[in-house]
């Protein structure tokens, strides 16, 4: 494996850190909003100063679901590329900086509109809820800025391929490239609805909007969005974690194949978010559900590969028996333990996902707080704990400092607290959801209905979990500030795993983008063309905008 830059160039490091500052400010703001939500929903607390529940829920969804994720991922992918494929060219770095500032400006625009209470439309901004146009424009800039960041990564990848003809690219660069392509293909959908529907409509240029088409374009983007969040965590699981524990990567080809499968099967599946929606033929919903279930394959491949890495490592250290290897893992190392908690949480998360994606079972959980419980396991545990685990070495690597023993210990407490808080919060959300409690709703006794009374104890459990989670966020912020500004100077490694000697040689077919993007486009056309024609031909007159907050 190419390990061109054992240490990332300082100029690239600054660009990455700029992304991380915004991401962690987002964590602070969003975490506070999350805490307030759980307190409001417990029924024991009311927001002061006329602040609305849906306003803070919009803050929470936007800054954590969109801002924290996008900034962290762009920073991490630039870092991974610079580390394994070489320092960015000046032009690429400049693109990265322009991307960063465009994203930041967009974030500030959207945030201002939310704070002025002109955009309490949640992070999914479904029509016919109508926000101020500056909110949509701001989110558009976040996407456009991320394309520029993506261009820097793609540019570096192209340079590398030119300089190393006939060789497979460094694994983690390859993965960053797959995720960048996935992101570009996916964001075309959200860009389309914002530019052609929501912006003209919120500007008053047109009166009405086709709700079904805008939701369909949103979910064409919305499902790959979750894979865009997840794949960087998988990059760390496949490539970084083996090195952290002192093992080898089980198989380079398996890792690449699973990433390619994610690219193919995570886009033509948006209907699984629209199973309860009228206006889409059930046959097409069925087709997209089948495609959705194909994602089980790369997911289980990932699980297998990780178990295999851990087991081979444990046995090389003399472990015996069926599960003896488990004890040999380096539990005292936060760079391993915190992401590992994330991996564990992906087991119930995946199980819940299978339920969500099954058309009939979706009727049981649709729009209940179960769904919120689900993505606080996927995104807000598996993904963010891995991002935190990455930060523990990447931030000091970039700032020329080290993770001290004391900080390492605190980091482990942080991860464990997160696990405890999330068990309470997400567990209670799953349970209340099965009892029918709705998501995205402020506290209500629903006129004293017996069914709603059943939900209240679970809401109190969510507030307990939320409080513990908030403490974990404060710990994380403390560690971040320490690693960025105060930790002792030194060298912290950027761990990149080596491929196991038993692994087969990687075939070049994985770098054949004409092939993979071609299949991606074909699958998308297959899954969406006829339903779209149907929606346009049978379109109702469209809806005026509503401001219900």
């Amino acid at each position: 494996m190419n390990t061109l830059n054992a240490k990332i160039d300082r100029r690239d490091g600054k660009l990455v850190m700029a992304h991380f500052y915004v991401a962690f400010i987002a964590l602070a703001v969003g975490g506070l909003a999350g805490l307030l939500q759980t307190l409001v929903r417990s029924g024991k607390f009311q927001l002061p100063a006329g602040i609305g529940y849906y306003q803070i829920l919009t803050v929470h969804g936007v800054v954590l679901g969109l801002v924290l994720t996008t900034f962290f991922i762009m920073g991490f992918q630039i870092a991974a590329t610079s580390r394994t494929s070489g320092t960015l060219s000046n032009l690429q770095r400049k693109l990265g900086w322009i991307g960063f500032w465009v994203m930041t400006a967009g974030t500030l625009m959207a945030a201002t509109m939310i704070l002025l209470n002109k955009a309490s439309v949640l992070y999914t901004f479904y029509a016919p809820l109508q926000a101020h146009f500056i909110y949509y424009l701001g989110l558009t800039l976040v996407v456009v800025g991320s394309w520029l960041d993506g261009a820097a990564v793609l540019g570096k990848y192209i340079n590398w391929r030119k300089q190393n003809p006939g060789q497979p690219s460094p694994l983690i660069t390859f993965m960053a490239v797959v995720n960048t392509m996935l992101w570009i293909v996916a964001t075309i959908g959200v860009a389309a609805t914002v530019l052609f529907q929501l912006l003209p409509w919120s500007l008053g240029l047109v009166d009405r909007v086709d709700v079904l088409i805008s939701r369909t374009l949103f979910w064409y983007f919305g499902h790959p969005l979750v894979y865009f969040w997840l794949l960087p965590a998988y990059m760390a699981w496949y490539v970084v974690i083996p090195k952290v524990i002192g093992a080898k990567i089980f198989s380079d080809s398996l890792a690449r194949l699973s990433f390619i499968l994610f690219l193919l099967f995570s886009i033509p599946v948006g209907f699984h978010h629209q199973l309860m929606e009228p206006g889409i033929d059930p046959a097409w919903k069925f087709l997209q559900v089948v495609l959705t279930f194909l994602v089980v394959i790369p997911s289980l491949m990932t699980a297998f590969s990780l178990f295999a890495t851990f087991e081979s490592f444990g046995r090389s250290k003399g472990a015996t028996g069926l599960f003896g290897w488990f004890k040999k893992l380096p539990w005292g190392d936060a760079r391993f333990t915190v992401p590992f908690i994330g991996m564990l949480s992906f087991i119930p998360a995946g199980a819940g996902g299978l339920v969500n994606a099954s058309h009939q079972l979706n009727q049981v959980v649709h729009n209940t707080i179960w769904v919120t419980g689900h993505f606080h396991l996927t995104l807000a545990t598996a993904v963010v704990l891995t991002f935190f685990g990455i930060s523990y070495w990447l931030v000091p690597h970039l700032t020329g400092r080290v993770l001290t023993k004391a900080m390492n210990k605190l980091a482990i407490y942080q991860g464990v607290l997160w696990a405890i808080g999330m068990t309470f919060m997400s567990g209670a959300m799953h349970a209340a959801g099965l009892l029918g409690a709705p998501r995205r709703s402020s506290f209500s006794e629903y006129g004293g209905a017996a069914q709603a009374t059943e939900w209240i104890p679970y809401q109190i459990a969510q507030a307990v979990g939320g409080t513990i989670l908030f403490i974990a966020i404060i710990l994380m912020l403390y560690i971040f500030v320490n690693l960025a500004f105060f930790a002792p100077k030194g060298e912290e490694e950027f761990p990149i795993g080596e491929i196991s000697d038993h692994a087969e040689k990687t075939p070049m077919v994985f770098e054949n983008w004409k092939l993979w993007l071609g299949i991606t486009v074909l699958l998308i056309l297959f899954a969406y063309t006829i339903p779209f024609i149907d929606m346009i031909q049978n379109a109702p007159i469209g809806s005026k905008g509503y401001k219900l907050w």
Partner: protein
Amino acid sequence: MAKTELNRKTKTEIEDSSSLKGTLASVFLLGFFLIVTWVSVYFLFLNRF
């Protein structure tokens, strides 16, 4: 006595060092958990609809 012990040890080591039986068991447990979750919500569905 000493001889048998020696034999046993070498045998386990050869069997263990490259074995992935723990991985196999883990993946099966994982699959089992996925199925149990799905089936329980499926019965909830049958009861309700």
